[in-house]
Protein backbone atom coordinates (compact mmCIF):
# COMPACT_ATOMS: atom_id res chain seq x y z
CA UNK A 1 0.00 0.00 0.00
CA UNK A 2 1.51 3.30 -1.11
CA UNK A 3 1.17 6.38 1.04
CA UNK A 4 2.27 9.87 0.08
CA UNK A 5 4.47 11.57 2.69
CA UNK A 6 3.55 15.27 2.85
CA UNK A 7 6.94 16.65 3.92
CA UNK A 8 9.29 14.18 2.28
CA UNK A 9 7.19 14.66 -0.92
CA UNK A 10 7.49 11.04 -1.85
CA UNK A 11 5.20 8.01 -1.80
CA UNK A 12 6.39 5.08 0.31
CA UNK A 13 5.13 1.59 0.95
CA UNK A 14 3.44 1.69 4.37
CA UNK A 15 4.19 -1.95 5.15
CA UNK A 16 7.86 -1.55 4.30
CA UNK A 17 8.21 1.42 6.66
CA UNK A 18 6.17 -0.38 9.35
CA UNK A 19 8.41 -3.43 9.02
CA UNK A 20 11.52 -1.25 9.24
CA UNK A 21 10.13 0.41 12.35
CA UNK A 22 9.33 -2.97 13.89
CA UNK A 23 12.74 -4.46 13.07
CA UNK A 24 14.62 -1.49 14.50
CA UNK A 25 12.21 -1.44 17.45
CA UNK A 26 13.01 -5.09 18.13
CA UNK A 27 16.73 -4.36 18.22
CA UNK A 28 16.21 -1.27 20.37
CA UNK A 29 14.03 -3.11 22.86
CA UNK A 30 16.51 -5.98 23.03
CA UNK A 31 19.54 -3.81 23.76
CA UNK A 32 17.81 -0.93 25.52
CA UNK A 33 18.89 1.65 22.95
CA UNK A 34 16.94 4.08 20.80
CA UNK A 35 17.88 2.54 17.48
CA UNK A 36 18.21 5.84 15.65
CA UNK A 37 21.63 4.86 14.30
CA UNK A 38 19.91 2.05 12.38
CA UNK A 39 16.70 3.87 11.45
CA UNK A 40 18.22 6.99 9.90
CA UNK A 41 20.45 5.10 7.41
CA UNK A 42 17.54 2.81 6.51
CA UNK A 43 15.31 5.78 5.71
CA UNK A 44 18.04 7.39 3.64
CA UNK A 45 18.42 4.07 1.84
CA UNK A 46 14.74 4.02 0.74
CA UNK A 47 15.13 7.47 -0.78
CA UNK A 48 14.11 9.89 1.95
CA UNK A 49 16.27 13.02 2.06
CA UNK A 50 18.87 12.73 4.89
CA UNK A 51 17.67 15.97 6.46
CA UNK A 52 14.04 14.78 6.61
CA UNK A 53 15.14 11.38 7.90
CA UNK A 54 17.20 12.86 10.74
CA UNK A 55 14.40 15.23 11.76
CA UNK A 56 11.64 12.61 11.65
CA UNK A 57 13.57 9.86 13.43
CA UNK A 58 13.87 12.12 16.49
CA UNK A 59 10.16 11.79 17.25
CA UNK A 60 10.27 8.05 16.59
CA UNK A 61 13.03 7.62 19.17
CA UNK A 62 11.05 9.77 21.61
CA UNK A 63 8.10 7.39 21.29
CA UNK A 64 10.07 4.20 21.83
CA UNK A 65 12.13 5.60 24.71
CA UNK A 66 8.96 6.88 26.40
CA UNK A 67 7.38 3.44 26.31
CA UNK A 68 10.64 2.01 27.69
CA UNK A 69 10.98 4.71 30.34
CA UNK A 70 7.48 4.01 31.69
CA UNK A 71 8.29 0.37 32.37
CA UNK A 72 11.66 1.26 33.95
CA UNK A 73 9.91 3.87 36.11
CA UNK A 74 7.50 1.22 37.39
CA UNK A 75 10.49 -0.91 38.35
CA UNK A 76 12.08 2.10 40.11
CA UNK A 77 15.09 1.79 37.82
CA UNK A 78 15.40 5.52 37.09
CA UNK A 79 17.48 7.98 39.09
CA UNK A 80 15.55 11.29 38.94
CA UNK A 81 18.41 13.41 40.30
CA UNK A 82 20.95 12.01 37.86
CA UNK A 83 18.48 12.36 34.99
CA UNK A 84 17.87 16.03 35.85
CA UNK A 85 21.59 16.87 35.85
CA UNK A 86 22.13 14.97 32.58
CA UNK A 87 19.19 16.84 31.06
CA UNK A 88 20.69 20.25 31.82
CA UNK A 89 23.58 19.30 29.55
CA UNK A 90 21.41 17.39 27.09
CA UNK A 91 19.09 20.29 26.29
CA UNK A 92 22.04 22.66 25.74
CA UNK A 93 23.73 20.10 23.50
CA UNK A 94 20.57 19.55 21.45
CA UNK A 95 20.12 23.26 20.81
CA UNK A 96 23.76 23.49 19.69
CA UNK A 97 23.29 20.41 17.52
CA UNK A 98 20.20 21.69 15.70
CA UNK A 99 21.98 25.00 15.09
CA UNK A 100 25.02 23.18 13.67
CA UNK A 101 22.69 21.04 11.55
CA UNK A 102 21.17 24.17 9.98
CA UNK A 103 24.63 25.66 9.32
CA UNK A 104 25.98 22.46 7.73
CA UNK A 105 22.89 22.14 5.56
CA UNK A 106 23.60 25.59 4.17
CA UNK A 107 27.23 24.66 3.51
CA UNK A 108 26.32 21.49 1.59
CA UNK A 109 28.53 19.28 3.71
CA UNK A 110 25.74 17.82 5.84
CA UNK A 111 25.76 14.43 4.13
CA UNK A 112 29.52 14.15 4.53
CA UNK A 113 29.34 15.23 8.17
CA UNK A 114 26.61 12.69 8.93
CA UNK A 115 28.53 9.93 7.14
CA UNK A 116 31.85 10.81 8.77
CA UNK A 117 30.44 11.01 12.27
CA UNK A 118 28.70 7.69 11.75
CA UNK A 119 31.97 6.07 10.73
CA UNK A 120 34.02 7.48 13.58
CA UNK A 121 31.41 6.99 16.27
CA UNK A 122 30.06 3.62 15.26
CA UNK A 123 33.37 1.91 14.54
CA UNK A 124 34.88 3.21 17.80
CA UNK A 125 31.93 2.38 20.03
CA UNK A 126 31.29 -0.87 18.16
CA UNK A 127 34.81 -2.22 18.48
CA UNK A 128 35.11 -1.12 22.12
CA UNK A 129 31.85 -2.81 22.98
CA UNK A 130 32.72 -5.92 20.97
CA UNK A 131 36.15 -6.37 22.58
CA UNK A 132 34.75 -5.68 26.05
CA UNK A 133 31.99 -8.24 25.51
CA UNK A 134 34.55 -10.75 24.25
CA UNK A 135 36.78 -10.23 27.27
CA UNK A 136 33.80 -10.55 29.64
CA UNK A 137 32.80 -13.80 27.97
CA UNK A 138 36.32 -15.23 28.25
CA UNK A 139 36.39 -14.25 31.93
CA UNK A 140 33.14 -16.07 32.68
CA UNK A 141 34.39 -19.10 30.78
CA UNK A 142 37.60 -19.13 32.84
CA UNK A 143 35.54 -18.47 35.96
CA UNK A 144 37.64 -15.47 36.91
CA UNK A 145 36.20 -12.64 38.99
CA UNK A 146 35.68 -9.34 37.14
CA UNK A 147 38.26 -6.70 38.04
CA UNK A 148 37.21 -4.48 40.92
CA UNK A 149 36.00 -1.06 39.90
CA UNK A 150 38.37 1.69 40.91
CA UNK A 151 37.86 5.43 41.06
CA UNK A 152 39.38 7.46 38.25
CA UNK A 153 40.25 11.14 37.74
CA UNK A 154 36.59 11.97 37.13
CA UNK A 155 35.86 11.29 40.76
CA UNK A 156 38.32 13.96 41.85
CA UNK A 157 36.38 16.82 40.24
CA UNK A 158 34.66 19.46 42.39
CA UNK A 159 30.91 20.25 42.70
CA UNK A 160 30.08 16.84 44.02
CA UNK A 161 26.51 15.72 44.44
CA UNK A 162 24.87 12.68 45.97
CA UNK A 163 22.65 10.63 43.65
CA UNK A 164 20.58 8.56 46.06
CA UNK A 165 18.85 6.07 43.79
CA UNK A 166 22.12 5.15 42.08
CA UNK A 167 24.05 5.23 45.36
CA UNK A 168 26.91 7.28 43.92
CA UNK A 169 28.65 10.48 44.97
CA UNK A 170 29.84 12.29 41.86
CA UNK A 171 30.79 15.70 40.49
CA UNK A 172 28.08 17.26 38.28
CA UNK A 173 30.66 18.52 35.74
CA UNK A 174 31.27 15.25 33.85
CA UNK A 175 27.54 14.45 33.97
CA UNK A 176 26.61 17.77 32.32
CA UNK A 177 29.41 17.40 29.75
CA UNK A 178 28.20 13.92 28.82
CA UNK A 179 24.68 15.34 28.49
CA UNK A 180 25.90 18.10 26.14
CA UNK A 181 27.83 15.68 23.92
CA UNK A 182 24.96 13.20 23.66
CA UNK A 183 22.43 15.97 22.96
CA UNK A 184 24.67 17.47 20.29
CA UNK A 185 25.42 14.32 18.31
CA UNK A 186 21.83 13.20 18.74
CA UNK A 187 20.48 16.30 17.04
CA UNK A 188 23.10 16.36 14.27
CA UNK A 189 23.04 12.67 13.43
CA UNK A 190 19.43 11.81 14.19
CA UNK A 191 20.30 9.23 16.80
CA UNK A 192 19.22 8.99 20.42
CA UNK A 193 22.76 8.40 21.60
CA UNK A 194 21.70 5.64 24.00
CA UNK A 195 24.32 3.27 22.62
CA UNK A 196 27.07 5.74 23.59
CA UNK A 197 25.48 7.02 26.76
CA UNK A 198 25.04 3.62 28.40
CA UNK A 199 28.72 2.55 28.13
CA UNK A 200 29.92 6.04 29.11
CA UNK A 201 27.74 6.01 32.21
CA UNK A 202 28.85 2.52 33.20
CA UNK A 203 32.59 2.75 32.55
CA UNK A 204 33.31 6.44 33.08
CA UNK A 205 30.77 7.64 35.62
CA UNK A 206 30.48 4.28 37.39
CA UNK A 207 26.68 4.41 37.51
CA UNK A 208 25.33 1.03 38.65
CA UNK A 209 23.73 -1.08 35.90
CA UNK A 210 20.42 -1.16 37.77
CA UNK A 211 19.63 2.49 37.00
CA UNK A 212 21.72 3.10 33.90
CA UNK A 213 19.34 2.11 31.10
CA UNK A 214 16.25 3.72 32.61
CA UNK A 215 18.08 6.98 33.33
CA UNK A 216 19.64 7.12 29.88
CA UNK A 217 16.18 6.60 28.40
CA UNK A 218 14.94 9.71 30.21
CA UNK A 219 17.75 11.72 28.66
CA UNK A 220 17.03 10.23 25.22
CA UNK A 221 13.32 10.95 25.62
CA UNK A 222 13.71 14.60 26.56
CA UNK A 223 16.50 15.43 24.11
CA UNK A 224 14.59 13.78 21.27
CA UNK A 225 11.36 15.60 22.13
CA UNK A 226 13.34 18.82 22.25
CA UNK A 227 15.07 17.97 18.95
CA UNK A 228 11.68 17.27 17.34
CA UNK A 229 10.46 20.68 18.44
CA UNK A 230 13.58 22.49 17.24
CA UNK A 231 13.69 20.67 13.90
CA UNK A 232 9.99 21.46 13.39
CA UNK A 233 10.51 25.12 14.21
CA UNK A 234 13.75 25.86 12.36
CA UNK A 235 14.02 23.45 9.43
CA UNK A 236 10.35 22.49 8.94
CA UNK A 237 11.48 19.01 8.00
CA UNK A 238 9.68 16.72 10.47
CA UNK A 239 7.37 14.44 8.52
CA UNK A 240 4.60 13.60 11.00
CA UNK A 241 3.09 10.90 8.78
CA UNK A 242 6.43 9.13 8.38
CA UNK A 243 7.10 9.53 12.11
CA UNK A 244 3.73 8.05 13.03
CA UNK A 245 4.25 4.92 10.90
CA UNK A 246 7.72 4.47 12.38
CA UNK A 247 6.42 4.96 15.92
CA UNK A 248 3.67 2.36 15.58
CA UNK A 249 6.09 -0.18 14.15
CA UNK A 250 8.85 0.80 16.56
CA UNK A 251 7.00 0.59 19.88
CA UNK A 252 5.47 -2.78 18.91
CA UNK A 253 8.82 -4.21 17.90
CA UNK A 254 10.44 -2.81 21.05
CA UNK A 255 8.11 -4.78 23.32
CA UNK A 256 8.99 -8.08 21.67
CA UNK A 257 12.65 -7.12 21.56
CA UNK A 258 12.67 -6.42 25.29
CA UNK A 259 11.32 -9.91 25.98
CA UNK A 260 13.88 -11.52 23.69
CA UNK A 261 16.65 -9.49 25.34
CA UNK A 262 15.88 -10.89 28.78
CA UNK A 263 16.66 -14.38 27.57
CA UNK A 264 20.23 -13.53 26.49
CA UNK A 265 23.12 -13.06 28.91
CA UNK A 266 24.53 -9.57 29.44
CA UNK A 267 27.96 -10.02 27.88
CA UNK A 268 26.57 -11.87 24.87
CA UNK A 269 24.14 -9.00 24.42
CA UNK A 270 27.01 -6.50 24.47
CA UNK A 271 28.97 -8.61 22.01
CA UNK A 272 26.04 -8.75 19.61
CA UNK A 273 25.31 -5.04 19.94
CA UNK A 274 29.00 -4.27 19.42
CA UNK A 275 29.00 -6.33 16.22
CA UNK A 276 25.86 -4.64 14.97
CA UNK A 277 27.18 -1.13 15.60
CA UNK A 278 30.52 -2.03 14.04
CA UNK A 279 28.80 -3.40 10.94
CA UNK A 280 26.79 -0.22 10.40
CA UNK A 281 29.90 1.89 10.93
CA UNK A 282 31.95 -0.15 8.46
CA UNK A 283 29.21 0.09 5.87
CA UNK A 284 29.44 3.88 6.05
CA UNK A 285 33.24 3.71 5.91
CA UNK A 286 33.19 1.57 2.78
CA UNK A 287 30.83 4.02 1.13
CA UNK A 288 33.23 6.90 1.78
CA UNK A 289 36.33 5.08 0.61
CA UNK A 290 35.23 3.34 -2.57
CA UNK A 291 34.67 5.43 -5.65
CA UNK A 292 30.97 6.43 -5.77
CA UNK A 293 28.96 5.24 -8.75
CA UNK A 294 28.14 8.82 -9.58
CA UNK A 295 30.48 11.65 -8.73
CA UNK A 296 27.77 14.25 -9.15
CA UNK A 297 24.82 15.02 -6.90
CA UNK A 298 22.03 17.57 -7.18
CA UNK A 299 20.34 19.38 -4.38
CA UNK A 300 17.48 21.85 -4.56
CA UNK A 301 17.85 25.06 -2.64
CA UNK A 302 14.22 26.06 -2.45
CA UNK A 303 11.38 25.86 -4.93
CA UNK A 304 9.68 29.03 -6.03
CA UNK A 305 6.32 29.25 -7.71
Amino acid at each position, binding site marked *: *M*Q*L*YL*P*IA*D*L*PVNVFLVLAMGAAVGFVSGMFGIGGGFLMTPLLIFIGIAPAVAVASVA*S*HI*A*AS*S*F*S*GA*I*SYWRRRAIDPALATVLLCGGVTGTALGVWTFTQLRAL*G*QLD*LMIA*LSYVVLLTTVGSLMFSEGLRAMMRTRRGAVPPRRTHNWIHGLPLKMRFKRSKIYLSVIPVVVVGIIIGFIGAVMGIGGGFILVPVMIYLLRVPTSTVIGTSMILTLVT*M*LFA*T*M*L*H*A*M*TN*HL*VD*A*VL*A*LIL*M*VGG*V*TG*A*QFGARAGQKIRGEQLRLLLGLLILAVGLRFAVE*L*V*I*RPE*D*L*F*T*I*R*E*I*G*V*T*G
Partner: protein
Amino acid sequence: MIARAIIAALLMLQLGGTAWAERLIVSVSNHRVTVTPNYSGEELVLFGSVERDAATPANRNAYDLVVTVLGPRADMVTRRKERKFGIWINTDYRQFLQVPSYLALFANRPFDQITSPEIARRQQIGLNNVLLTQRVGTDYADVVPDDAFRSAFIRLRTQRGLYREDPSAVTFLTPTLFRTGIPLPAEVPIGTYEVEIKLFANGALVTKTETAFEIVKVGFEQFVATSARQNGFIYGLVTAALALTCGWSASIVFRKD
Protein backbone atom coordinates in the same frame (compact mmCIF):
# COMPACT_ATOMS: atom_id res chain seq x y z
CA MET B 1 -11.35 29.01 -15.45
CA ILE B 2 -8.33 31.28 -15.16
CA ALA B 3 -6.23 28.90 -17.20
CA ARG B 4 -8.91 28.87 -19.91
CA ALA B 5 -9.08 32.66 -19.90
CA ILE B 6 -5.29 32.83 -20.29
CA ILE B 7 -5.39 30.39 -23.18
CA ALA B 8 -8.13 32.41 -24.82
CA ALA B 9 -6.17 35.62 -24.35
CA LEU B 10 -3.04 34.01 -25.78
CA LEU B 11 -4.96 32.76 -28.77
CA MET B 12 -6.33 36.25 -29.36
CA LEU B 13 -2.81 37.68 -29.20
CA GLN B 14 -1.60 35.04 -31.58
CA LEU B 15 -4.34 35.84 -34.05
CA GLY B 16 -3.87 39.56 -33.82
CA GLY B 17 -0.09 39.66 -33.71
CA THR B 18 1.06 37.17 -36.32
CA ALA B 19 0.34 36.74 -39.94
CA TRP B 20 0.49 32.95 -39.79
CA ALA B 21 -2.45 31.16 -41.15
CA GLU B 22 -2.46 28.26 -38.72
CA ARG B 23 -3.86 28.24 -35.25
CA LEU B 24 -3.25 25.67 -32.50
CA ILE B 25 -6.09 24.54 -30.27
CA VAL B 26 -4.83 22.45 -27.33
CA SER B 27 -5.99 21.15 -24.01
CA VAL B 28 -4.62 18.86 -21.30
CA SER B 29 -6.75 16.11 -19.85
CA ASN B 30 -6.51 17.54 -16.34
CA HIS B 31 -5.63 21.10 -15.43
CA ARG B 32 -5.43 20.36 -11.73
CA VAL B 33 -3.65 17.23 -10.55
CA THR B 34 -4.37 16.63 -6.88
CA VAL B 35 -1.94 14.84 -4.59
CA THR B 36 -3.90 12.47 -2.36
CA PRO B 37 -2.55 9.92 0.16
CA ASN B 38 -2.39 7.24 -2.53
CA TYR B 39 -0.86 9.49 -5.19
CA SER B 40 1.95 7.74 -7.02
CA GLY B 41 2.44 9.75 -10.16
CA GLU B 42 0.10 10.30 -13.06
CA GLU B 43 0.01 10.55 -16.82
CA LEU B 44 -1.70 13.49 -18.40
CA VAL B 45 -2.75 13.62 -22.02
CA LEU B 46 -2.31 16.70 -24.16
CA PHE B 47 -4.40 16.80 -27.29
CA GLY B 48 -5.13 19.41 -29.87
CA SER B 49 -5.56 20.25 -33.50
CA VAL B 50 -4.04 22.51 -36.13
CA GLU B 51 -6.71 24.85 -37.46
CA ARG B 52 -6.18 26.01 -41.01
CA ASP B 53 -7.93 28.86 -42.77
CA ALA B 54 -8.12 30.38 -46.20
CA ALA B 55 -4.71 32.03 -45.88
CA THR B 56 -2.94 28.73 -45.35
CA PRO B 57 -0.78 27.78 -48.34
CA ALA B 58 -2.53 24.85 -49.95
CA ASN B 59 0.68 22.83 -50.38
CA ARG B 60 1.47 22.99 -46.65
CA ASN B 61 0.01 19.97 -44.95
CA ALA B 62 2.91 18.16 -43.28
CA TYR B 63 3.38 19.52 -39.78
CA ASP B 64 5.87 18.83 -36.98
CA LEU B 65 5.14 19.47 -33.38
CA VAL B 66 7.36 20.04 -30.35
CA VAL B 67 5.83 20.06 -26.88
CA THR B 68 7.83 21.43 -23.94
CA VAL B 69 6.59 20.92 -20.37
CA LEU B 70 8.28 23.08 -17.72
CA GLY B 71 7.73 22.44 -14.02
CA PRO B 72 8.04 25.01 -11.23
CA ARG B 73 11.43 26.70 -11.26
CA ALA B 74 13.96 26.22 -8.48
CA ASP B 75 17.57 26.96 -7.66
CA MET B 76 19.73 23.85 -7.56
CA VAL B 77 23.33 22.97 -6.87
CA THR B 78 25.27 20.25 -8.62
CA ARG B 79 28.25 19.03 -6.64
CA ARG B 80 31.18 16.94 -7.76
CA LYS B 81 32.89 14.49 -5.45
CA GLU B 82 36.64 14.18 -5.46
CA ARG B 83 39.01 11.96 -3.60
CA LYS B 84 40.63 13.90 -0.77
CA PHE B 85 42.49 12.38 2.18
CA GLY B 86 41.43 8.94 0.95
CA ILE B 87 37.70 9.62 1.06
CA TRP B 88 35.25 10.93 -1.48
CA ILE B 89 33.95 14.36 -0.57
CA ASN B 90 32.07 17.16 -2.31
CA THR B 91 34.56 19.69 -3.62
CA ASP B 92 33.54 21.65 -6.69
CA TYR B 93 29.99 22.82 -7.32
CA ARG B 94 27.89 24.75 -9.83
CA GLN B 95 24.73 26.69 -9.07
CA PHE B 96 21.78 26.33 -11.43
CA LEU B 97 19.49 29.33 -11.11
CA GLN B 98 15.73 29.18 -11.61
CA VAL B 99 15.86 26.04 -13.71
CA PRO B 100 12.72 23.97 -14.27
CA SER B 101 12.35 21.21 -11.68
CA TYR B 102 10.54 19.13 -14.30
CA LEU B 103 11.36 19.36 -17.98
CA ALA B 104 9.98 17.25 -20.79
CA LEU B 105 10.36 17.67 -24.54
CA PHE B 106 8.19 15.67 -26.88
CA ALA B 107 8.01 15.64 -30.66
CA ASN B 108 6.61 13.57 -33.48
CA ARG B 109 10.03 12.84 -34.98
CA PRO B 110 13.71 13.45 -34.11
CA PHE B 111 14.45 17.09 -33.41
CA ASP B 112 17.20 17.32 -36.05
CA GLN B 113 14.73 16.23 -38.72
CA ILE B 114 12.17 18.81 -37.68
CA THR B 115 14.30 21.89 -37.98
CA SER B 116 17.81 23.23 -38.43
CA PRO B 117 20.31 23.30 -35.50
CA GLU B 118 20.18 27.10 -35.61
CA ILE B 119 16.39 27.30 -35.11
CA ALA B 120 16.49 24.44 -32.59
CA ARG B 121 18.92 26.45 -30.50
CA ARG B 122 16.89 29.64 -30.74
CA GLN B 123 13.60 27.89 -29.96
CA GLN B 124 15.20 25.74 -27.20
CA ILE B 125 14.30 22.44 -28.85
CA GLY B 126 15.96 19.46 -27.14
CA LEU B 127 17.49 19.07 -23.68
CA ASN B 128 20.82 20.34 -25.03
CA ASN B 129 19.22 23.59 -26.16
CA VAL B 130 16.97 24.45 -23.24
CA LEU B 131 18.36 27.42 -21.36
CA LEU B 132 19.70 26.38 -17.95
CA THR B 133 21.08 29.49 -16.31
CA GLN B 134 24.14 28.85 -14.17
CA ARG B 135 26.37 30.97 -12.04
CA VAL B 136 29.80 30.63 -13.63
CA GLY B 137 32.21 32.71 -11.58
CA THR B 138 30.57 36.12 -11.48
CA ASP B 139 28.60 35.46 -14.67
CA TYR B 140 25.05 34.23 -15.13
CA ALA B 141 24.90 32.17 -18.29
CA ASP B 142 24.29 28.81 -19.82
CA VAL B 143 27.27 26.80 -20.97
CA VAL B 144 28.03 24.41 -23.82
CA PRO B 145 25.93 21.22 -23.75
CA ASP B 146 28.89 18.93 -23.11
CA ASP B 147 30.02 20.83 -20.02
CA ALA B 148 30.65 18.33 -17.20
CA PHE B 149 28.28 19.93 -14.70
CA ARG B 150 25.52 20.60 -17.20
CA SER B 151 25.54 17.10 -18.64
CA ALA B 152 25.72 15.54 -15.16
CA PHE B 153 22.79 17.70 -14.12
CA ILE B 154 20.68 16.56 -17.08
CA ARG B 155 21.75 12.95 -16.64
CA LEU B 156 20.79 12.88 -12.95
CA ARG B 157 17.45 14.58 -13.54
CA THR B 158 16.74 12.15 -16.39
CA GLN B 159 17.56 9.18 -14.17
CA ARG B 160 14.90 10.34 -11.72
CA GLY B 161 12.40 10.76 -14.54
CA LEU B 162 12.24 14.50 -13.97
CA TYR B 163 13.90 15.50 -17.24
CA ARG B 164 13.03 13.64 -20.40
CA GLU B 165 12.99 13.99 -24.15
CA ASP B 166 11.09 11.68 -26.41
CA PRO B 167 11.06 12.50 -30.11
CA SER B 168 8.33 9.97 -30.82
CA ALA B 169 5.84 10.77 -28.10
CA VAL B 170 3.63 13.04 -30.21
CA THR B 171 1.32 11.18 -32.54
CA PHE B 172 -0.70 12.74 -35.32
CA LEU B 173 -4.05 10.98 -35.41
CA THR B 174 -4.99 12.81 -38.61
CA PRO B 175 -2.72 15.28 -40.44
CA THR B 176 -4.05 18.01 -38.14
CA LEU B 177 -5.14 16.20 -34.97
CA PHE B 178 -2.46 15.27 -32.43
CA ARG B 179 -1.98 13.90 -28.95
CA THR B 180 0.87 13.19 -26.52
CA GLY B 181 1.14 11.77 -23.03
CA ILE B 182 2.86 13.71 -20.24
CA PRO B 183 4.19 11.21 -17.69
CA LEU B 184 4.54 12.63 -14.19
CA PRO B 185 6.56 10.40 -11.86
CA ALA B 186 5.58 10.19 -8.19
CA GLU B 187 8.28 12.56 -7.03
CA VAL B 188 7.44 15.45 -9.35
CA PRO B 189 7.42 18.75 -7.52
CA ILE B 190 4.22 20.51 -6.53
CA GLY B 191 3.41 23.69 -8.43
CA THR B 192 2.43 25.20 -11.75
CA TYR B 193 3.53 23.55 -15.00
CA GLU B 194 3.75 25.45 -18.27
CA VAL B 195 3.23 23.64 -21.55
CA GLU B 196 4.55 25.20 -24.76
CA ILE B 197 3.44 23.78 -28.06
CA LYS B 198 5.39 24.79 -31.17
CA LEU B 199 4.23 23.97 -34.67
CA PHE B 200 6.77 23.58 -37.46
CA ALA B 201 6.32 23.19 -41.19
CA ASN B 202 9.21 22.62 -43.59
CA GLY B 203 11.69 23.35 -40.82
CA ALA B 204 10.26 26.76 -39.94
CA LEU B 205 8.30 27.74 -36.85
CA VAL B 206 4.72 28.36 -37.95
CA THR B 207 2.98 29.17 -34.72
CA LYS B 208 3.02 28.38 -31.04
CA THR B 209 0.69 28.35 -28.10
CA GLU B 210 0.81 27.72 -24.40
CA THR B 211 -1.26 26.05 -21.77
CA ALA B 212 -0.71 25.12 -18.16
CA PHE B 213 -1.69 22.73 -15.42
CA GLU B 214 -0.95 22.59 -11.74
CA ILE B 215 -0.12 19.89 -9.24
CA VAL B 216 -1.52 20.68 -5.81
CA LYS B 217 -1.63 19.01 -2.46
CA VAL B 218 -5.17 18.87 -1.12
CA GLY B 219 -6.87 17.87 2.10
CA PHE B 220 -4.67 16.18 4.64
CA GLU B 221 -1.39 16.51 2.70
CA GLN B 222 -2.00 20.21 2.19
CA PHE B 223 -2.88 20.64 5.85
CA VAL B 224 0.25 18.86 7.10
CA ALA B 225 2.59 20.64 4.70
CA THR B 226 1.29 24.13 5.41
CA SER B 227 1.12 23.67 9.16
CA ALA B 228 4.69 22.36 9.19
CA ARG B 229 5.81 25.46 7.35
CA GLN B 230 3.65 28.11 9.00
CA ASN B 231 3.04 26.85 12.53
CA GLY B 232 6.30 25.05 13.25
CA PHE B 233 5.87 25.36 16.99
CA ILE B 234 2.38 23.83 17.15
CA TYR B 235 3.35 21.23 14.55
CA GLY B 236 6.33 20.22 16.70
CA LEU B 237 4.14 20.08 19.82
CA VAL B 238 1.60 17.87 18.06
CA THR B 239 4.34 15.54 16.77
CA ALA B 240 5.87 15.35 20.24
CA ALA B 241 2.45 14.65 21.78
CA LEU B 242 1.93 11.97 19.13
CA ALA B 243 5.22 10.34 20.14
CA LEU B 244 4.29 10.37 23.83
CA THR B 245 0.80 8.98 23.20
CA CYS B 246 2.24 6.27 21.02
CA GLY B 247 4.84 5.24 23.58
CA TRP B 248 2.34 5.40 26.42
CA SER B 249 -0.32 3.33 24.66
CA ALA B 250 2.27 0.70 23.74
CA SER B 251 3.25 0.34 27.39
CA ILE B 252 -0.48 -0.06 28.28
CA VAL B 253 -1.21 -2.56 25.51
CA PHE B 254 1.83 -4.71 26.20
CA ARG B 255 1.75 -4.34 29.97
CA LYS B 256 2.75 -7.54 31.71
CA ASP B 257 0.42 -8.22 34.61
